[in-house]
């Protein structure tokens, strides 16, 4: 709730004016039955004699002057008055809707943008924790829910209470005795609503769960179609699905049943109230002298009591949506309240002999248990050096290089880039020095040249082509009909793994980084292409420091130095030839890839 008010503040004027406009509409709605009463009572029943009604005689006097009026005069006058009231009320209503929409959509827009901005400022670990799916839902569904709720709140906050109060007053003004009817009907209705809802609401959660289960069966069947068919398990899967489906059906029916009870019960209460009102009215005409009761009064009373009971229903609906909206607010607030763990420093950095240096670095993922991923690593990587890292999966290679652009911060120890602790760097400057090519190439929907320009917004066509050439992407790009303007759909689903990797390398090269990190990013290339790529890098990059992680020994053996990472520590760090002598782990890896076959040639 706090957030709604905070974000509503800029639209305070609209937010206040909107409910006020609604009062106008409610007022019109409340007037209508009264005008109708006059038409029925005095126009039709009393043959145009309005002397008993203050409102009736006043209006008629204004329109026609003193005297007596015909039935038709009364009916038509009040008919036109009714329509006028409707038009005026409608105008108020539309204006109210406009202001409410403007305020709530403005709030939603601000909320959405702030949440997105926040996400874009968070650290990797934090977005990982949220997961993509949940962030998408928060940014779209939850925000929409909040908008809808705010809008409803602005439009409805005065309506049911005013109907409730106004209707009650009007009803009692007609005759106090009608109050009894209301006093009986209201509690019964409330109890019924509460009884049904208290059962139905928990079921909603169960329905969602069953639906999720059903969906996951479908999901698995669509993605795993090959395996299912290969093992001839279609019938088994159908049974599995039918089970999930009937579970969903049972629970859905339960919810719908509860609703099926609710509706008639509420109508019964409402209709019973109508009957009671008519009966009491009739009884009074006969038994109470001078009660002032008339057919029109009874009809008006019926209208008012229906209005009152309806507004009670509406209020309960509102309360129901409050709890749902609050859940959404909470989920969005979770995003807004998260502070980025990684805070930018302000140093710009200068030149130093050593490009990257790890000093006693230990690292464990936040909230991860067990032994740290990296422990006490001290390594210097010199400017212009090609530095390779090998090791088993899970040994911490990626974690180590992740510390350089500060995707994560070291738990202990320091990381220096160009002689300055990364924590003291202005984040933007730091990351500008570095091009990081991920294990999994991530491309974006757009043309090829747009994707390469990600590395450098203002890159010329020549620079783009040059980067593509070094990354050995040139050939396949030119083979496309539209060359660099070819559109890459769905994050590059139309490209092969190797093509994607070369694209992301080109993107990394176009910005001419000081430090190039290749995180197993040539794995999908065949050795020949990879070798040419490596040659190209060596030739073109000059004093760029290259840090590369690789699985294949063939990819790393030409590096200046190779670090072997084992269980989070550097067990050896030297050239290929040296490592073949001193590092048993390295020799192991070498043998597992080569077996004895390699020497045959």
């Amino acid at each position, binding site marked *: 709730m706090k957030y709604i008010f905070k974000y509503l503040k800029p639209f305070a004027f609209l937010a206040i004016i909107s409910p006020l406009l609604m009062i106008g509409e409610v007022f019109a709605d409340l007037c209508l039955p009264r005008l109708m009463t006059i038409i029925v009572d005095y126009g039709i029943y009393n043959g145009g004699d309005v002397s008993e009604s203050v409102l009736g005689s006043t209006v008629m006097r204004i329109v026609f002057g003193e005297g007596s009026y015909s039935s038709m005069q009364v009916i038509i006058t009040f008919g*036109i008055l009714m329509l006028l009231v409707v038009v005026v009320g409608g105008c108020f*209503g539309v204006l109210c809707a*406009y202001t409410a929409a403007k305020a709530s959509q403005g709030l939603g827009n601000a909320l959405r943008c702030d949440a997105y901005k926040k996400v874009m400022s968070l650290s990797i670990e934090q977005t990982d924790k949220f997961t993509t799916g949940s962030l998408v839902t928060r940014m779209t569904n939850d925000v929409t829910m909040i908008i809808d709720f705010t809008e409803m709140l602005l439009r409805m906050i005065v309506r049911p209470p005013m109907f409730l109060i106004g209707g009650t007053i009007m009803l009692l003004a007609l005759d106090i005795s009608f109050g009894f009817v209301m006093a009986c009907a209201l509690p019964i209705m409330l109890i019924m609503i509460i009884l049904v809802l208290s059962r139905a609401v928990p079921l909603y959660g169960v329905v969602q769960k069953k639906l999720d289960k059903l969906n996951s069966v479908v999901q698995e069947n669509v993605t795993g179609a090959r395996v299912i068919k290969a093992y001839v398990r279609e019938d088994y899967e159908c049974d599995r699905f039918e089970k999930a489906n009937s579970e969903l059906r049972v629970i859905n029916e339960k919810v719908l049943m509860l609703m099926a009870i609710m509706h008639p019960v509420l109508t019964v209460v409402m209709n019973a109230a109508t009957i009671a009102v008519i009966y009491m009215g009739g009884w009074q005409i006969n038994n109470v002298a001078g009660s002032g009761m008339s057919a029109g009064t009874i009809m008006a009373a019926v209208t008012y009591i229906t209005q009152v009971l309806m507004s009670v229903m509406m209020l309960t609906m509102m309360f129901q949506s409050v709890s749902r909206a609050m859940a959404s607010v909470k989920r969005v607030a979770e995003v807004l309240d998260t502070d980025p763990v990684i805070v930018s420093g302000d140093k710009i950095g200068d030149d130093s002999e050593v490009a990257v240096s790890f000093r006693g670095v230990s690292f464990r993922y936040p909230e991860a248990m067990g032994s740290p991923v990296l422990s006490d690593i001290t390594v210097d990587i010199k400017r212009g050096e090609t530095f390779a890292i090998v090791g088993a999966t899970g040994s911490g290679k990626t974690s180590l290089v992740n510390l350089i652009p500060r995707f994560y911060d070291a738990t202990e120890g320091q990381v220096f880039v160009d002689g300055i602790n990364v924590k003291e760097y202005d984040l933007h400057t730091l990351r500008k020095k*570095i091009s990081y090519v991920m294990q999994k190439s991530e491309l974006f929907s757009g043309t090829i040249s747009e994707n390469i320009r990600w590395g450098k917004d203002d890159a010329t066509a020549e620079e783009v082509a040059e980067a593509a050439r070094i990354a050995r992407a040139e050939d396949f790009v030119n083979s496309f009909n539209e060359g660099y303007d070819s559109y890459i759909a769905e994050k590059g689903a139309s490209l092969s793994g190797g093509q994607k990797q070369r694209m992301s390398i080109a993107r990394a090269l176009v910005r001419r980084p000081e430090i190039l990190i290749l995180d197993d990013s040539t794995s999908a290339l065949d050795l020949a292409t990879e070798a040419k790529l490596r040659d190209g890098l060596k030739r073109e990059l000059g004093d760029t420091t290259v840090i590369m992680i690789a699985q294949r020994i063939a990819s790393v053996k030409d590096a200046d130095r190779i670090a072997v990472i084992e269980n989070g520590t550097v067990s050896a760090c030297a050239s290929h030839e040296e490592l073949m002598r001193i590092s048993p782990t390295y020799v192991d890896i070498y043998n597992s890839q080569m077996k004895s076959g390699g020497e045959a040639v």
Partner: protein
Amino acid sequence: MNNGQPRGQMPPMRMAGRPGPGGPGGPMGARLNKEKPKNTKKTLKRLLKYIGGSKLLLICLVAIMLIVTVSDLAGPFLQGKAINTISITESGIHVDMAAMTGYLAFMGGMFAVSALMAFFQGILAAKLSQRTVYTLRNDLFRKISKLPIKYTDTHKHGDIMSRMTNDVENVSNAISQSITSLISSILTLVGAFSMMIYYGWIMALIACVTIPMTIALTANLGKFMRKFFIRRQKLLGQINGQVEEMVTSYKTVVAYGKETDSVEEFSKMSEELRKCSISARVWGSIMGPCMNFLGNLQYVLIAAFGGFFLLNPGIIPFMKPLLLGDIQAMLQYSKKFTRPINEIANQYTTILTALAGAERIFEIMDSADEVDDGQTVVEDIKGDIEFKDIFFSYEPGEPVLRDFDLSVKAGQKVAIVGATGSGKTTIVNLLTRFYELDSGKITVDGVDITEIPKETLRRSIAIVLQDTVLFSDTIRTNIKYGRLEADDEEMKFAARFSKADGFIERLPEGYDSLLAESGSNLSQGQRQLLSISRAVLADPKILILDEATSSVDTRTEMKIQQAMVALMENRTSLIIAHRLSTIRDADVIVVLKAGNIAESGNHEELLAHGGEYYKLYQNQFAGIST
């Protein structure tokens, strides 16, 4: 061998698949184009057939709704009668209490019946919609399971998912709400109109004056509003996509310092959405007051003309004189008149959406089943395989296999090597009949595989794909997937055999450990071991292995290797191989090039031959030792 893309040339293949619509926001995109069904009539007919599947329920429902409507309509009639008992005489106002009480009691009775029936109506409607949707879902799922692999390969998974979930949901909503409210609206309309006629045809005519206005209004305004709603849906989809793309690739975004740019882009979309939403809302809010106006106009018209006829009886020929209570009742009916029209207009959009959804569902149901008309009973397949004069292409005009011949004897190990796109995976797709040949013939034990029932064929083959498929169930069930009827001993043996037992037993709940969706809580290597266990349990005569190219740590790698070697014993094995050791150990190495066999033989022979294999070998492996 080329490590690039081990999946042959299949155009949009997605064996691993995208996670599909994870959250409720996922399939937004799909929602865009389903505003209007293409062939309304046909789809409606077909959908009605589904609903008609439970005829008895449907008939009961309509009957009950008839009762509910009649008793609802009787309300104003009786109310009018009750109020007619109030009369103004010379001595003042008087009520015939006995008559009034009678009418009121009758009214009460009617309401009670109506409520009871409404209750049954609710239950029946729930049953009907749930049963229909249940059957629809089951049928759709059965259909999906019968679709050829080609279908899932060439259609977006998210789209298929969204048909199964969103579209079915829309149909369900339409049935549970729209149909009942549509029927009851029509009944009410007809009923209210007949009551009007009962009071006098001229009055009914007057009541009708506003109907064309109402219809014109809802239709036009509706069309106008829809424009905004479609646009809004589209923008929401874009925002969805933006968040998804940027968050999944957040590391890249951060690495290239693109945060500010993306925030700017997002703000632009968000602002557009804001404007569009406001317009949609405002136009939407105009509908209510307009309807209100028309409703009240009708009220006034009836009051005016009613009053006029009351005072001037006999002015219209053949019209019986009106009473006060009649006008009262007519005014009540006039209120009942506008609501259903409004309701029908509202339901119209819901029903259109549902029909569009139904159409998309039927689209799947209408796609061709996997061909499976083999009749030949083959027992004990030995495992001789022969490919003869095979031509095959995924896309017409782009042949993947050209005049391909290969013969494998039972028990042989055949390594298939070749560059990306040379057709390795295609051979697997054809042998398992995931795809059908363009021409040529594949035989197993001399029998054409198109003549063998698919079940028999596939049961004799086990495949271990490099993209492992696991199900969100226990490890036990996942292994038993190979052979459902296997007992625990056999299952554990399979795990031991494939060296998966080590890590399984270290898990806190052992074989009962639940896997997360697609086994994402296991490492890549562990997933592979599990899928090997599954193949071991299936104990097939023919084994297809698609060796993983992805990086697995050395120790697990060794285990996988050993398990695979053990598994291949005494089976005909086709291996799409990437590892030197596997290739060297094969009985026959087949080198594919451009859809054909460039050469074949064993390791030594081929090296000595100095052809394609020699080149590949030099390229991939030899470089390491120099």
